[in-house]
């Protein structure tokens, strides 16, 4: 989340190193570093059974515990598609003075959302929007808000293409103060709402996630933020069908993800319908039917196969 300037080094783990948990005595072999965030680093590792998994380790024990609590809550919600699956929680005692907390989770492989769209085309935008809104709705229904929803926390897993959450560290109970956020995706930064955890907080971030695909360098806020965001939304041709929905979402007009999801799918449906009737716009019709078909096929596939 943040680029700290001089922070204490996390445990420096090198490939081949073995870590044994203090409590459960499971052994993990470190393969390589996957990433580093505000709280600790994530490594690809091999479990005792030879399976690949992701291991997050930090000297901030309390932050690890907080994240584990969120993952456990998601596990209890019985939604295997939300967050990565939690496998183990333990401490690693390096020596007398150094003790680190870690947890092991499912390793989700995939591609970033902007890369995927760049390669496969904007027809996929609607698919991932519907998937994401579905997942958010499930999360909100179980009393949580994602919080730090951003491009870096999402991954497109393959066959079938499915959007997945890889970092749930910002997930906050509904009604509380958002635990972790990133300015570009935070409606508080844009002066368009509070930092209280509500469904509408996530829906604002969702719009920014999709804008980020077309503004890879992001942009900074100007004086009239609402007008600025509206202009940025209007300027992206690929997002044209969703313009109105996006504008409603950034101004907090949706009370739930289900509500936004209904309107988004109505837009996709309408695009297909209008394509059938206006012969003058053949190219547009072909394009929108294509969008619709791809959207429906992959959406259905993702629903049935998971």
């Amino acid at each position, binding site marked *: 989340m943040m680029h700290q*300037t001089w922070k204490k080094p996390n445990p420096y783990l090198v490939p081949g190193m073995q870590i044994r948990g203090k409590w459960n005595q499971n052994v993990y072999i470190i393969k390589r570093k996957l990433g580093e965030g505000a709280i600790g680093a994530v490594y690809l590792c091999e479990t005792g059974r030879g399976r690949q998994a992701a291991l997050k380790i930090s000297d901030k024990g309390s932050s690890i515990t*907080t994240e584990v609590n969120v993952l456990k809550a998601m596990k209890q919600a019985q939604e295997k598609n939300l967050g990565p699956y939690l496998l183990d929680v333990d401490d690693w005692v390096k020596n007398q003075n150094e003790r680190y907390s870690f947890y092991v989770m499912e390793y989700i492989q995939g591609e970033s959302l902007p890369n995927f769209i760049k390669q496969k085309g904007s027809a996929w935008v609607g698919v991932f929007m519907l998937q994401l809104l579905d997942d958010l709705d499930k999360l909100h229904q179980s009393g949580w808000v994602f919080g730090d929803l951003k491009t870096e926390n999402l991954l497109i897993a393959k066959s079938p293409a499915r959007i997945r959450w890889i970092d749930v560290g910002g997930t906050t109970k509904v009604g509380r*103060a958002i635990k972790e956020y990133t300015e570009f995706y935070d409606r*508080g930064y844009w002066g368009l709402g509070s*930092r209280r955890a509500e469904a509408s907080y996530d829906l604002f971030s969702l719009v920014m996630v999709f804008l980020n695909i077309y503004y890879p360098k992001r942009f900074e806020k100007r004086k009239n933020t609402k007008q600025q965001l509206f202009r940025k939304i209007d300027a992206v041709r690929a997002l044209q069908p969703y313009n109105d929905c996006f504008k409603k979402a950034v101004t907090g007009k949706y009370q739930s993800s289900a509500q936004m999801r209904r309107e988004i799918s109505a837009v996709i449906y309408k695009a297909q319908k209008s394509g059938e009737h206006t012969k003058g716009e053949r190219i547009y019709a072909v394009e929108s039917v294509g969008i619709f078909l791809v959207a429906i096929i992959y959406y259905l596939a993702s629903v049935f196969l998971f």
Partner: protein
Amino acid sequence: MKKGTLKQILLITDGCSNKGEDPSAVAALAQEQGITVNVIGILDDDQTEEPMGLREVEDIALSGGGISQLVYKQLLSQTVQMVTKQAMTQTLQGVVNSELKEILGSDQTMEDLDPEKRGEIMEVVEDMGETSDLEVLVLIDTSASMQDKLPTVKEALIDLSLSLNARIGRNRFCIYQFPGKRNKDIQKVFDWSPKLDSVSTIFPKLTSGGITPTGPAIKEAIYQFGKKNLLRRFRRNDAPDVEEA
């Protein structure tokens, strides 16, 4: 456990102190009185190494039981709210740990419990952090070199009140600058208030001085906290929203 008010001093500076007592010693004094001292050191954009002057930052926070962070001014907003929240968690964990010691015996802390139990306790700590009342006395270094950083500091403080006011618990903020006018070490620029939105008007008026009396400023801040609590005791009947620490 009784719900209390967390008290913090947030010191924002870009250099080292050059007048009065050792700021670390004063910070230790603050901690003794239940006030946490957090320090944020602002770096200039072209600074790539840790400057000598900012060494002090970590020491003050360590002895003040708080959190320190060096940061470039672009990242100030996020840092201010993160430091404040982390310090709250740290304080509350300290409270929980001392309770645990009483129940479990001498050297037991949260880390000695298995992850399962720790998770349950962490939930309690989080609940407390969300619901406790918080008082933050912001202490801004207004020595000459800070002048170009003050607009960013203002933004960061407005942002801080946005973050904290999303909590269930109540907040109060006040702002002091140091050095003050007419050779005073510290000067009040914004009185206790639940929101910092109205802070915009006072910032252009902040003038800068040459010296950096960090130690005396923290000492004065502790006194201001004490004075406030004294006043509260008199006013308790008229102010039902105020709770005992």
